C-alpha cells in the first residue's frame, strides 16, 4: 500500500486505493445551492460594549459619590474644647427669696459653689450666626413643629386605643355581679 498516495495523493498511485476511489466516488456529494428561507434573518452579533459602558459609568458615579461624602464628613471639625471646659453660671446677686431675719446666717461656702451646666456640642461650624428676627422665626417654627408632633402623637394614641381590644377585667365583672 502506497501510504503517500493515501495521504495526499502524491507519489505512485496505489491501484487498490484508486479502485476504491472510483467505486466510492459515486456516492460523493453532488453540489447543490443552499437556499436560506427569506424569513430567516441573520441575528446581529450581541454587543456587550454598551452594557459595559453603562455599568462602568454607574460604578464611577457611585465611587465619586462615596469619595465626596467621605471627604465632606471628614472636613467637619470636632470641637473638643467644648467638652473639656464646662460653662460656669454665676449665682444671682439678688436672692430669689427674702431671707428670714431670725434665721441663722447661711453658710457662705454653699453660695460660692458654681453650678455646672452641661453645654451642648455644636454639630457643625458651618451654621451661620442667626439674626434676632431669624431666631424668632425659627422658634415659632419649632413651636409649630412641636405642636404638630404632639397632635400626631395624640391621634396615634387614640387610634391605638380604638384598635386595641379592651381586655375583659374579671374584677369589673365581679363588681357588676356584686
Amino acid at each position, binding site marked *: 500500500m502506497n501510504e503517500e498516495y493515501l495521504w495526499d495523493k502524491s507519489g505512485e498511485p496505489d491501484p487498490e486505493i484508486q479502485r*476504491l476511489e472510483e467505486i466510492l466516488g459515486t456516492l460523493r456529494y453532488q453540489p447543490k445551492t443552499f437556499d*436560506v428561507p427569506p424569513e430567516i434573518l441573520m441575528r446581529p452579533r450581541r454587543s456587550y460594549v454598551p452594557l459595559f459602558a453603562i455599568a462602568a459609568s454607574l460604578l464611577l458615579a457611585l465611587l465619586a459619590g462615596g469619595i465626596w461624602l467621605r471627604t465632606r464628613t471628614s472636613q467637619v471639625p470636632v470641637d473638643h474644647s467644648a467638652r473639656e471646659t464646662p460653662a460656669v453660671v454665676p449665682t444671682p446677686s439678688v436672692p430669689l427669696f427674702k431671707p428670714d431675719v431670725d434665721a441663722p446666717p447661711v453658710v457662705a461656702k454653699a453660695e460660692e459653689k458654681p453650678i455646672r451646666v452641661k453645654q451642648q456640642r455644636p454639630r457643625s461650624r458651618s451654621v451661620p450666626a442667626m439674626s434676632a428676627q431669624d431666631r424668632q422665626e425659627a422658634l415659632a417654627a419649632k413651636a409649630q413643629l412641636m405642636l404638630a408632633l404632639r397632635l400626631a402623637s395624640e391621634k396615634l394614641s387614640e387610634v391605638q386605643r380604638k384598635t386595641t381590644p379592651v381586655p375583659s377585667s374579671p374584677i369589673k365583672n365581679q363588681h357588676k355581679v356584686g
Partner: protein
Amino acid sequence: MYELEATADMILMSPQAIPAKAPKAEETPIEVSLVRAALEGDRDGFGRLYDLYTPLVHGILLSRVPRDEVDDLVQDIFLHAFKKLDTLRDWAAFGPWIAMIARNRAMDFHRRSRETVEITEDIRSTDQSTSRASEILDLVCELPDAYRETLVLRLVEGMTGPEIAARTGLTPASVRVNLHRGMKLLKVKLGFVEGL
C-alpha cells in the same frame, strides 16, 4: 485491539489534546472573513462557507447515517449553523464547529430512529443502482468511528489528508494514523468479502 486503538485515537483527536495551532499574525484564514461577512448579513458569504464545507459534513454524515437521509440532514445542519453562527466564538474554527454539529445531529438521528420502526435496512438492500458502492460503504461504516470518518472523507469525498486535518481541526498525525489503520482494516474486510 482495534477498538482500543480507535478509542485512543479519539482521545487524541479530542480538542483538549490538540495542540493549539499558533496562527501567524499575517495569515488570516478565509473562514474568518466569510464568517464576518455572513454575520454582517451577507448571504453569499455563508454560501461560500457552504460550498467549502459541504463535502466535510456530507462525509461525516455518510459514515454515520443511512445514505438516503444524508442530503436532508446536510441542509438541516447548514440551516442550523446559519441561525447559530453568532454563537461561534472562534471564527477560524468554523470547520471543527460544523463537524461537531454534524456528529451530534447524526447521534440525534440514531436516538430518534430507535423510537421508530427501522426500515432503512430494507430500503438499502433493495437499492440496486449503487449497490457495490453501498456494500463497500457498509463495510467502512463497520470500522471504528475515527477510522470510518477519515476514510469516507478520503475515499468518497476525495479530500486529501492535509485537507481533512485542516477542515476537521484534527492534527495531521492523527489523520494519517486513522487513514493508515482504517485502510488496513478495510482491506482485511474486503478480502473476506470479495477479494478486491
